[in-house]
């Protein structure tokens, strides 16, 4: 028996960064807004006590704030010729659970993609010819430019209080910042974080090599700040409990610190937690959403009618909800037709470990987005001609943590346990640092998401199936980047270095990154995209889909800055939509 609830103006699926921002911006117009979140409510005061928040066992090992596979999991395979099996323990990526979503457990690295990233296909072909494009690729230009997104990047940075140093303000290159970045309207809202010893060595070495290091833009903020929503943040204490943790110190940019305090005061806003949305309901002709169906905390099935449905879950689960709801045609790699699930992408990680003879890097005095980076090898900031790959990476010297349970660096060849291992950990802990390359992943015909034919969730719905592997282009790029990292590590004065190549085939077991992108991409052509340039469904005009699922391919950066910018960009369009509902781009 489905319980039918009173209509709302706006129904939001998921209460993370994107859901909380759109909820606040729409509720303050006076619209009746309900957000449905499948996990629990979480706020700083109730859930992240300074005495218990830095609990590595609870959060980093036992994954307290993450999705349980029993709630939802995926099946996975590397290639369409294989049979996918369910992920029974989350590994390579960790989807969040509950209010705040990934915005709660992230590290806080808040990048803008580079202007070239938004028209990468056209740009690469113009500069290098079509021959540079990798085999099987489905790389496509974004339907929005950097310049169009700039005010929205700015808005997100202001709301999140991001700490950094501008490299290009209105076309004027700024000393100390990233000279490759697109022009910004102004400085970051807070100054860059204080860097550690490793970063000073990196900066000196990289500068000496003619490279352009700058402090990484950070959502662990450097000084007290009050954002445009009136929410206050405190300076980061460099405790090194960021990624996989909630911040007890009001220092990490998150929905909890930056949006929820203002949102919960809005009288027309309602959050319903422990409510799992099972389907976006459509009108008989399939052209309009009528609301959503969800299972509430008591296990009761409810129908929530609404005029506007905003799909704001984690990128992977946005795609699954579209597939389960029949919004957009599912992608079929055999024919190349269909769009939902198409262009799933991820991120590469490679680099070099640098072992020093005598150094004290104090890795425990850290923060998730502390670090110095350089973009000389990102996007098309260097000549790709001799290398034969597309894409790039941001290269960084960073310590995100030196936590006692899981941070046990040892040199290659050390036994995995026993007294020799213990001695190696003791000898190495203070003497090792890293130069890492976080790289782009392009989109390919055979990297995609669809519904699994075999495995189902506890509600009887098919699990989503992920088919993904790093393609030769990404392997070539990431391994070339590892060599660049090693060069810098040597110049920093490391006694020995270890090259960390991209691990292939992609495995779901070791943690790599939760930068899952694509599957519901935005584009100019409804035959190759799920959403138009305003994140509005081509097929169902009162459905907008927020998040990294909209990326046509992934760039050499963390996705959140661009997710935030796209959210404000789409919101501006939603304001127009509210005045005159309908398709914002005709197909």
């Amino acid at each position: 028996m489905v319980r039918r609830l009173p209509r709302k103006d706006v129904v939001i699926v998921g209460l993370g960064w994107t859901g909380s921002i759109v909820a606040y911006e729409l509720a303050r117009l006076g619209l009746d807004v309900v957000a449905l979140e499948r996990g629990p409510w979480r706020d700083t005061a109730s859930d992240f006590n300074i005495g218990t928040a830095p609990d590595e066992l609870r959060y980093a090992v036992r994954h307290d704030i993450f999705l349980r596979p029993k709630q939802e999991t995926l099946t996975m395979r590397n290639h369409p010729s294989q049979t996918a099996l369910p992920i029974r323990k989350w590994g390579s990526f960790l989807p969040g659970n509950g209010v705040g979503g990934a915005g709660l457990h992230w590290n806080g690295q808040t990048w803008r993609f580079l202007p070239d990233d938004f028209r990468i296909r056209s740009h690469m072909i113009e500069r290098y010819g079509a021959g540079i494009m990798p085999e099987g690729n489905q790389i496509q230009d974004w339907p929005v430019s950097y310049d169009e997104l700039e005010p929205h990047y700015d808005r997100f940075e202001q709301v999140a209080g991001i700490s950094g140093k501008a490299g290009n303000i209105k076309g004027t290159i700024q000393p100390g910042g990233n000279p490759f970045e697109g022009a910004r309207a102004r400085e970051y809202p807070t100054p860059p974080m204080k860097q550690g010893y490793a970063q000073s060595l990196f900066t000196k070495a990289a500068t000496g090599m003619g490279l352009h290091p700058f402090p990484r833009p950070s959502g662990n903020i450097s000084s007290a700040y009050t954002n445009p929503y009136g929410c206050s943040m405190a300076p980061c204490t460099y405790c090194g409990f960021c990624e996989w943790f909630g911040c007890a110190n009001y220092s990490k940019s998150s929905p909890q610190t930056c949006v929820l305090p203002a949102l919960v005061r809005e009288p027309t806003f309602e959050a319903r937690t422990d409510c799992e949305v099972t389907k976006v309901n459509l009108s008989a002709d399939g052209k309009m959403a009528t609301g959503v169906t969800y299972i509430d905390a008591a296990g009761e099935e409810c129908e929530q009618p609404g005029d506007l449905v905003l799909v704001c879950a984690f990128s992977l689960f946005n795609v699954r909800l579209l597939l389960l709801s029949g919004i957009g045609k599912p992608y079929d790699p055999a024919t190349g037709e269909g769009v939902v699930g198409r262009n799933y992408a991820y991120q590469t990680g490679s680099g070099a470990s640098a072992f020093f003879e005598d150094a004290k890097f104090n890795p425990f005095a850290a923060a998730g987005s502390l670090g110095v980076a350089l973009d000389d090898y990102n996007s098309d900031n260097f000549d790709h001609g001799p290398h034969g790959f597309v894409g790039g990476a941001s290269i960084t010297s960073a310590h995100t943590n030196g936590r006692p349970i899981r941070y046990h660096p040892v040199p290659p060849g050390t036994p995995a346990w026993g007294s020799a291992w213990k001695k190696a950990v003791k000898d190495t802990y203070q003497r090792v640092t890293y130069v890492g390359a976080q790289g782009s992943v392009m989109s390919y015909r055979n990297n995609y998401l669809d519904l699994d034919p075999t495995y189902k969730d506890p509600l009887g719905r098919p699990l989503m199936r992920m088919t993904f592997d790093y393609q030769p282009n990404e392997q070539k790029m990431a391994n070339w980047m590892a060599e660049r990292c090693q060069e810098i590590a040597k110049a920093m004065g490391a006694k020995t270095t270890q090259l960390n190549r991209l691990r292939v085939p992609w495995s779901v077991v070791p943690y790599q990154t939760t930068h899952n992108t694509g599957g519901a991409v935005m584009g100019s052509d409804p035959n190759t995209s799920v959403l138009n340039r305003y994140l509005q469904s081509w097929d169902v005009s009162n459905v907008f889909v927020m998040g990294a699922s909209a990326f046509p391919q992934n760039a050499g950066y963390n996705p959140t800055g661009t997710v935030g910018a796209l959210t404000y960009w789409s919101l501006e369009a939603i304001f127009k939509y509210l005045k005159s509902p309908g398709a914002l781009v005709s197909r």
Partner: protein
Amino acid sequence: MSTITTRLRHLILLLPLLVAGGAAAGPDNHVDIARGKALVIAGDCIACHTAPRGERFAGGLALQTPFGQIMAPNITPDNTTGIGSWSADDFARAMQEGRRPDGAYLYPAFPYPYYTKVARGDLDAIYAYLRTLQPVENRVDRDTLPFPFNIRLLMKGWNTLFFTPGPFKPDSARSAEFNRGAYLVEGLGHCGACHTPFNSFGASRNDKYLEGNQIDNWTAPNITNDARAGLGKWSADDIVQYLKTGQNGFSLASGPMKDVVENSTSKMPASDLKAIAVYLKERGAAGPPASTPLLASDPRMQAGEAIFVDTCAACHMRSGDGVAHLFPKLAGSAVATQQDPATLVRIIVAGGRAAATDGAPTSPAMPSLGYRLTDSQVADVVTYVRNSWGNAAAPVTEETVKALRARVTGAAAGD
């Protein structure tokens, strides 16, 4: 039965109109009702007359007094369990004289010694607003005090000794703004009910007016213009900002004042807040003489400093300067150096949370640290805070912490 009740209520609704003429509000008098609502906000009536998770204004909150527990009554217009059968005159008499319609004496936990100063026109507006509330049937036990305090007639003697009835009299030598502030603070705002010490009969001590008190195991600090213990360092604008947003550069409202700010002052007009500020700044200053700070070499200071650095400094800063809008400044804090250390002790033992307002929505929390600090450690760190960065106040003993912890957490004092 219900028809009779309804008819009776209609009759009673009409009565004040007939008897008091224009003084009471007709049901369509929106101006008076809106004014009454604003006055109910200024008086923070909801704070005592609403139980936790209870219906608004339907009573049932247990007020703890030194004489026992008193349950705040239902003031919705329900005929049998609320004040539905009261006339405007009945209501005015309760507010001005502390008497029920049947003549029975009310206890001064209901602060009629303050409300007596409220003008009749304002009382009628409050009455008109209360009558627009949804009647809620909620019977509250009004006789919970133990013998002999359950004898309401005792209050007749109490009133003779401690109660001066009569409306507010403006001081013609002062500005209109000052007098408006005085009218609000001394009357409906009943600020002194918390911020003035009691005598042993539970009456506010007029000789120590607004010099601070302990309420529900929180320090209600000195709010005279005293430079050290009171608001002397605050400008009138600082006071307005505090009342409007729950915070300023000196302090963040927590404990009972959090509720006062959230329910009452943050919703009051700026002109009234300014008047309150002008009154508090100009009324006068009084406080205890300055203390001499403990020496840094005192073993309690050394132990306290070690605890402060490990446990407190990440947020409140080694300098005691705190972080604006989030973590209160301890250096130079009047609350930290009140004679009564209750707020400092209880926040460490049991935690606390600052007010959330439209102007400052974050509402930061201080976690409870009572689970890992012993009474002696809490005493040392509080002593350290009270005697560092220029602060000077009497040291706090382990026994004080033990007793307060027992009252706040329910832990047996012997634990």
